[in-house]
Every structure is written in structure tokens, then in C-alpha cells.
């Protein structure tokens, strides 16, 4: 078949389906290849072809070019071949239940965006991680297929409910595959939303997508499954690489953990001290203070009230902007400087906000160490203005805990009490002299 278009081959070429095998000519040189999707950052009139050699190139299709489609393609298929169908549904009893929410750990290369996209099918997850069940049955339950920046506070109870259901169905442990960007928020949220946990809830992610041979997804997942099977743990944790090596993983408490690097495998750190433990060569090694399992049954300790906010103070932040930001909110967490300070020009609006019953809580943007109002005059002024100091809570954890506390009471006094009280070991009363490892 011939598709020669003397006036402008580009018009016809751009309408051809992906995977079409074509021969394009400018009169001098002929290119033969398979049409692959136009990269979103690719130039105008650029046809992207996969050549027989496997290389992709872009050809600028000028008026006067000719082309024809070829019957058969020798090039590799553009799309993945279909993978074997889903798993047979099995009982959760004794299995580890893997809840998938999307994220890099369950993403693959997407031609159209030029980036990675989450996979939707359970079978696709298994295709990536065929070794998943090496140490026992794993049941996969898809919850979302979103990158984690698209996971919002209203999604946290949904995930928590899946955990409750899994444990009620007899799961030995629960693993949640999640994008890493907001994994720390979700970990903190589940820490507060889940009560009477009979076993571990392990959040895990990947910093490298699973279509790469070097992906950390598989080794993180294996370590997470090992932690999920550990009978000594009854709390929400995050398991990720402890360093650049594929043989050591850190177990972080869900309320202590923060993503501290945009790309490293060991991006997740426990703030203010060591993590709860490590997985070394498949063995779970726990330190002191791990919360043991409850007798159960687990329950969802909701709801959350999303009318709370998190505001990072900076020298140019005016009182007007901060006040506007907090309009309509029942509470706000400030990430203040140093020991927990904001410019003294903020005192006025804070005083009137707290007088109206709004919660204004203070954390430190240093991320390590306590927010402490007693050392400097500004702190003492803020304390008098009604600011609630939240010690060494991470700003994100404080924000999540605020939404949870707001969901539990309409009374600001009660909300303050809930915020102050240690719920799941989120406060560290002792900061090791050695510092984080």
C-alpha cells in the first residue's frame, strides 16, 4: 500500500498508528523503521522512528518528503506483549497482603509522556516481581494506581480501611506499595488512623522504576515482605534502602520518617535518631522500643478533617499572606526557624486566630531537634500568643496528626490535648548523642 502525499507527508504520517512500519524519503536518503510515539519534548514536524538497529531517531519531515507504509515490521513491538492473566484469588489467611497504590514501585516507561506511569493490573505487578512469593504467599490487592503526589488526605482512610479488612481476613502482615514523594505523609496518617494493630503495616516504595535492571523496587519489596511477616511488630513502618547497597534496609517508624533526597535509594531517614531496625541479608534486626502487636481486632480510628494546613516560614512571609493562607482552616502547623520561631510581625494575627479557637502549632524547619519556646523571647511571646509547641515532631507528621485530631473533636482544647499526647511513639523523648546513623 502506498501513502505517498506529494503536498505534505507530515500530515499523513502523523495520523498513522503507532507501530506502523514505514519508509520515509527526502529524495536522497531513505529511512526505514517503526513509528514510535512523539516525545512530548520533541520538536515540530519530527517523526520518531525506531530503526532496525533498535535506535530511535527523529526525522524532520519537510514538505516534499515521500513515504510508504510497509507490510511487515521486523522491528521489536512498540508495546509490551500481553502478560499472563491475573492470579487466582486466594484466601488472605496466613498471606502477606500487598496493597498497591501506584508510584514508581509499580510504574513503567510511558512513551507518550516520556516518563514513567503507574501500572494498573495485578498481573503487571507480578510480571515485574516474579520472585515476590519466594518466601510465602502474597495476595495482591490494587487500591489506587496513582503517583503519590496525587494521593490526598481523603485517600488515607481508604488505604487504612483496606488494612483493617486485610487483617480481619486473616492476613499475616500488610505491605503497601506507594509512591515515595508523599510516602512519609501516608505513613504518618496510617500511624494515627490504625488502632489495635495485630501485626505490621509496611509501606514501601522505589526510587528507580522496575523496568530498570537496577531498580530498588524488588529488593525493597522483598525486605518489606520479610518485615510484614515479623511477629514482633505491631505498628506502621516504612522499609527502604539504608544506603546505596542492595543488601541493607532500614525499618523506619511511620511518624519519624521523611524523604530527605530527591533521587537516592536511601532517601528515607528517621529523624532525631536511629530507625527501629534493619533488614540485613533477609534477616529482620530490631532495636529497642518497637511497638508490639495488639490483640486486635484492628480498627479504623478516623475520621480526619482536612481543614488544617502546613506553612513554612521564610523571612519575606508577611502577616497578611499567612493570615490569608489560614482562612477557613481549623488549625495550622508552622514550620518555624530554629527552635520554632516566626517573625515577630506575625504575633498579631496569631493572637487573634488562637483567640477564635484556631489551633496554631509550631515545629522546626530544621527537621532535627525540638521546637522549644523557652530559650528565646520570640518563643516565649509565641507561647503567650497561644502557639502549641510540638517538640520534635516533623512538620509533616504534625500536620497529619493535626488533621487526625481535628477529626476527633470540635473542641480546640481537646484537639490540643490529642496533639500533645504521645499516641504511637511519635515523640522521641531522648535524642541520641550519636545522632542519626
Amino acid at each position, binding site marked *: 500500500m502506498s501513502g505517498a502525499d506529494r503536498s505534505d507527508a507530515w500530515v499523513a504520517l502523523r495520523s498513522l498508528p503507532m507501530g506502523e512500519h514505514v519508509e520515509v524519503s527526502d529524495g536522497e536518503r531513505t529511512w526505514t523503521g517503526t513509528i514510535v510515539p512523539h516525545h512530548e519534548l520533541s*520538536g515540530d514536524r519530527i517523526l520518531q522512528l525506531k530503526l532496525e538497529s533498535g535506535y530511535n531517531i527523529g526525522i524532520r519531515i519537510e514538505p516534499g518528503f515521500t513515504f510508504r507504509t510497509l507490510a511487515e515490521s521486523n522491528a521489536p513491538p512498540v508495546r509490551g506483549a500481553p502478560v499472563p492473566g491475573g492470579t487466582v484469588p486466594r484466601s488472605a489467611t496466613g498471606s502477606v497482603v500487598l496493597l498497591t497504590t501506584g508510584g514508581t514501585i509499580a510504574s513503567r*516507561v510511558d512513551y507518550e509522556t*516520556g516518563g514513567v506511569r503507574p501500572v494498573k493490573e495485578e498481573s503487571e505487578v507480578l510480571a515485574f516481581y516474579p520472585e515476590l512469593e519466594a518466601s510465602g504467599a502474597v495476595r495482591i490487592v490494587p487500591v489506587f494506581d496513582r503517583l503519590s503526589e496525587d494521593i490526598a488526605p481523603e485517600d488515607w482512610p481508604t488505604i487504612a480501611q483496606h488494612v483493617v479488612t486485610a487483617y480481619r481476613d486473616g492476613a499475616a502482615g500488610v505491605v503497601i506499595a506507594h509512591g515515595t514523594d508523599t510516602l512519609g505523609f501516608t505513613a504518618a496518617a496510617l500511624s494515627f488512623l490504625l488502632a489495635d494493630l495485630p501485626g505490621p503495616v509496611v509501606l514501601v516504595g522505589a526510587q528507580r522504576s522496575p523496568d530498570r535492571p537496577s531498580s530498588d523496587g524488588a529488593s525493597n519489596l522483598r525486605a518489606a515482605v520479610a518485615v510484614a511477616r515479623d511477629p514482633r511488630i505491631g505498628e506502621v513502618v516504612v522499609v527502604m534502602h539504608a544506603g546505596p547497597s542492595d543488601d541493607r534496609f532500614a525499618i523506619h517508624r511511620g511518624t519519624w520518617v521523611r524523604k530527605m533526597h530527591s533521587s537516592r535509594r536511601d532517601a528515607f531517614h528517621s529523624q532525631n535518631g536511629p530507625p527501629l531496625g534493619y533488614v540485613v541479608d533477609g534477616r529482620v534486626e530490631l532495636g529497642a522500643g518497637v511497638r508490639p502487636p495488639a490483640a486486635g481486632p484492628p480498627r479504623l480510628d478516623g475520621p480526619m478533617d482536612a481543614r488544617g494546613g502546613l506553612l513554612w516560614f521564610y523571612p519575606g512571609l508577611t502577616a497578611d499572606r499567612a493570615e490569608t493562607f489560614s482562612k477557613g482552616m481549623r488549625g495550622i502547623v508552622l514550620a518555624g526557624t530554629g527552635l520554632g520561631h516566626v517573625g515577630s510581625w506575625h504575633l498579631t494575627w496569631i493572637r487573634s486566630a488562637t483567640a477564635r479557637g484556631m489551633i496554631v502549632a509550631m515545629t522546626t524547619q530544621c527537621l532535627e531537634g525540638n521546637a522549644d519556646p523557652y530559650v528565646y523571647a520570640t518563643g516565649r511571646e509565641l507561647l503567650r500568643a497561644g502557639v502549641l509547641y510540638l517538640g520534635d515532631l516533623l512538620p509533616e507528621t504534625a500536620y497529619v496528626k493535626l488533621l487526625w485530631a481535628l477529626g476527633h473533636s470540635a473542641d480546640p482544647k481537646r484537639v490540643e490535648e490529642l496533639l500533645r499526647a504521645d499516641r504511637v511513639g511519635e515523640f522521641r523523648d531522648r535524642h541520641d548523642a550519636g545522632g542519626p546513623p
Partner: protein
Amino acid sequence: MKAGLEVHQQLATGKLFCACPSELSDDVTLSFVRRLRRASGEGLAIDPAVEYQASRGFSYRYEAGPSNCLVEMDEEPPHPVNPTALDTALQVALLLHARPVDEIEVMRKIVVDGSNTSGFQRTALVAVDGRLDVAGKRYSILSVCLEEDAARKSGGSDAEVIYRLDRLGIPLIEIATGPEITSGAEARAVAEEIGAIVRSTRRVRRGLGTIREDLNVSIEGGHRTEIKGVQELRLIEQYVEGEAARQSVLLGIRDELRRRNAPPVGTVATEVTDGFADVTSGPLAAASRKGPVLALRLRGFADLLRSPPGTDERLGRELAEQARSIGLRGILHSDELPGYGVDAAHVEAVARRLGLEREDAFVLVTDGSRERAERAIARVAERADRAREGIPGETRDPLPDGRTRFSRPLPGRERMYPETDVPPISVERARLERLAESLPESTAARRARLVREYGLSEEIVRQLAAADALDPFETLASYGRSPGAVARLLVQEVPGVALPPGIVEFEPSVDALDALLAAAEAGRFAKEGIPNMLSAFAGGAKDLEAALTVSGLGGMSREELEGLVEKVVRENARMIAARGGAAFSPLMGDVMRAVRGRRDGGEVAKLLREAIARSNPAA
């Protein structure tokens, strides 16, 4: 025979996808361990080369140092392509009359041998359809690619391979020729010419390992084999001719197997461990052996595992390479038994156990791990089976002795998919025009000019180019040194220098060479002393005076020479009296040995003739 080349030249532009220097370093500040997994390309089919590498189940240790950042550790996405490296690749494309593509897309080529922390090599096709003329013959240039170099192996064991990350990410220009090369000599000449063209950009790294060649060789009826990573240009001929010979032997074996109707090779091994309980020496000795002995029957292979008469290639070695590639010491096969501590009775017993017939052969494998021994049997069986079809497509490693060794199966196309972390690069016309205006003089034009300007022969200029010495030649000649002396120095004397023990490399500066030639011209020492002076510099002599002292060339005065000549003539007065002028030759030899290059030979001869004449006026 048909052969094509892929020339890989490292660039000195800084790394391709990060801001690290393109320099090697022996400092190690951090090491870490990774395991690479199988991953598919765009389709889910797994490439045979990937499958093979992944089946080896290695873990990898990486050593990072001052030439590394998070990008080489695969802990940070690649930065945009280094623009200077891309300019250099485009310049090379223009020099080779190749046609740049309109938009360059960086691809990931899956390589899970651990040499890339990411598990893939980033590579981009820059230009196609070039040409190259060498010695009156035209060769096609199929492609010019820009890619990142891999990490280099720095050690390892059965279970772990260690890589140094300093080399990872250094830009490589890859130039692929068409399969128009028909001999080893042609292959070498084409490689030299391409090397000269790339170096003319003056943005390349120098020294051993900075230019590497892959040789694709096939013979009529054979299959393409890739000899990967040849660093020694002088061995190219040997590799190419040797591969042709190997393929020819394997085709002969295939024909014989077909004549014998050899059936497909089964993969089921028979355990024969107890049959070797009384072996006391060799690889099967019961005391040193730590695992089972497995035997594999090869139907129809009798006498085909050893070298055919007059050749050095044998199928037995190919089978052994398969076992070695997963960490075994090797194999034993029936064509080399009895031997290695195994006697005829053992052979007989194995043959009975396997039900061997007259035309059958067998292979014995042992290893501490039964699982690994079984994997070795599977590999050996597969390779033996391929012998019935001819020559397996494979990648082979070049060895320093000019032979090659199995490395892995030839990769297919499946292993490339787009590097989505790097946006495509549009090659704008303005950029190509700017580069075209600043192209270096073509190597052919430069050679013609050197012949014309300096009155050198074409052969000498070719040798200068092959020795990568055109730049120093022109510099020294511009300093006023004699072109002939400079050419001899660069083509013969420097490359041929006798290196003192412990010294492996000698790259004298142009200034040092200039001082050396100037001193020779001024008569500080005879030109015969240049090789000794170079050795002295190679050994670390700091300046000319030090080199003169070390080489013993300094300090022979005219008076000392005259004294020496007089002494020799005096001691040989009777011979001179008897033989007259014919005494000159033997005496000249004696004197020159004593002079050791410290004075000019012509001067010595003149003094000696005069002294002989004085001693025997009749002579």
C-alpha cells in the same frame, strides 16, 4: 571473509551525563553492593544476552572516588547531554561525510553484566551514511554514535565482581563501518585511519584503553562473531584472521556431525561420582574434589572435541569456556582421556554407564555446588548442540596472546528502549554550520601537506599518523629540528624505547624531545645515543644532564676519544703491521663499544683511520 569494525574512542570533554571529569582515578572513597535484575525492553521479551548475564546470578561491588558523583552511582538521574561531547561527535560525523539525524534520542541498551550501575548503557545514534577512503578503497560508515563508557573491572571472586566507577560515563564516540573489510591487514588500516580522524578533533583521551575496537567477523557459511574491546591495534590482524580460522574449523566439525547424523544433544547428565573414588590426582581426585562428578553423553562427537590436524582450534575448548563462564575451572572430555589422573578403566566405566557407542564422546564436570555443576552441563550441552548448526553468534573477549574467548551470546535488538530521563536533542542547522566551519584539517589533506612541506615519504607520514605523532612532529619541525631526525625519533626511537624494569609507559613531552634533538645536533652526544637517552628519560631522568649521566653518554671529551684510539692502535700494533688497512673494521668495533655512543661514529672512524695510518704508513 567479511569484517566490520566498531571503533570506540573516549573523549576528554568531561563525562557525558554529569559534571565529573573524564579521568581515571585509583582513589576509592566509597564502595557499595548491587544486584541487577532481568528487565525487559519495550516488549516483554527478554534479550538472549540479558537472559544469559542474569542467569549468572552475580552481585556487583562498585568502588567510587573523586571522578564520581551520584549519577554514576545510579542515585541521581542523568543530566542533559554534555554539549562539547555532542559537538565532537557531530564533528567526527562531518569528517566522515556522514549525515546527522534531525533529532537525537538517547536510548538505554540493557547490559546486566554489572558494568553499568543502571543496568543499561546510554547511547544515541548521531549520524549515518558516511564513508572513508583508505589505500584507494572505499568503506561505508554505517553509524556514528555517542555513548557512555562502562565501569572497569577491578577484581572479584566466584560470587562477586568488583567494578571501579571512574570510567563509567566517560563519553565514547562509536564509529561502525560496513562489512567491506576482507583481511586482517585491511581491518588494522581502517582502524588506524578512523583513530587518526577522531584524534584530529583534539578532544580525545590518550593512552592505553582510550580507544577500543569491536571486530565483527564472519566467513562464508559462518555467523557473525563480535570480538569486543580490542585495545591493542597491532593485534587486530591476528584476531580477525584467527576468528576466520576458528569459524572454518567449526564449519568442518558441523559437516562431520551432519555426515554422522548426530542427533540433538540431550541435557540430562548422569552422576558418575562413585566411579572416580580411587582417582588420586588431577581435577577429579577424590581428596580435592568437593562435589559430584557429572557426565554428559555427546552422540556423534567422538574425535571432534580435539584440534583437527594443523589447527589450534578445538571444540573441547569452546565447551570448557561455557563451564568457565559460570565459574568452573573447566571440563574433561573423552578426546583428552585417559589423562589428568583418569585411566583407561575409568573411561571404560563411564562409557558403559552412558551406553556410549563408537562415534560418541562424553564430557565430565565437577564442582563444589551440584546446582552449578548442573548449570555447567546445561551450558555445555547447549553449546555442543549448536555445533550441529555451525557457529553460534557470540561475543568473544580478546586475549593478550591474540586468541579470543567466549564472553556471552550476541545481543539482539530487544535490549534498547528510550532513556526517558533525557529529553531528545534537536540538531539545528546553525549548529552544524558552526561545526562545519571549524572542522579540523582532514587527515588525508594533512598527510599530503606534510609530504609536500617537509619532503617526507608517504610511508613515513603514514607511520607518523599511525603512531599518533603528527602533532609532535609538526611542533618539533617548527622548532627547527631536522624533519628526518624528528620522524625517526617519533616513529622508531620513542615507540621502540627499552623501558627500565618497573616502567610500563613512557610519554615524553615535546619539550623534552626538542632538548634531546638539540643536544644531539650540537654534538653533546652522538645520534646513536638517542635510544639510551630515551631509556634514561623513561627511567625518570629529570633533565638532559641527568640523562647524560644515567646513560653514561656524558663526559667523553675529544681528548679522551683520542687517547682511547691511540691506546687501541698501540695494543694492536702487530695486527696493524700484518694486515694494514684491513685492521680498521675489527678495531672500529672495539673502539665503538668503548665509546658507547658518546661521540659521533663518523668522527671516531676518521680518528681511527688517521691513527692506523700513523702506526703503519704503508697501510
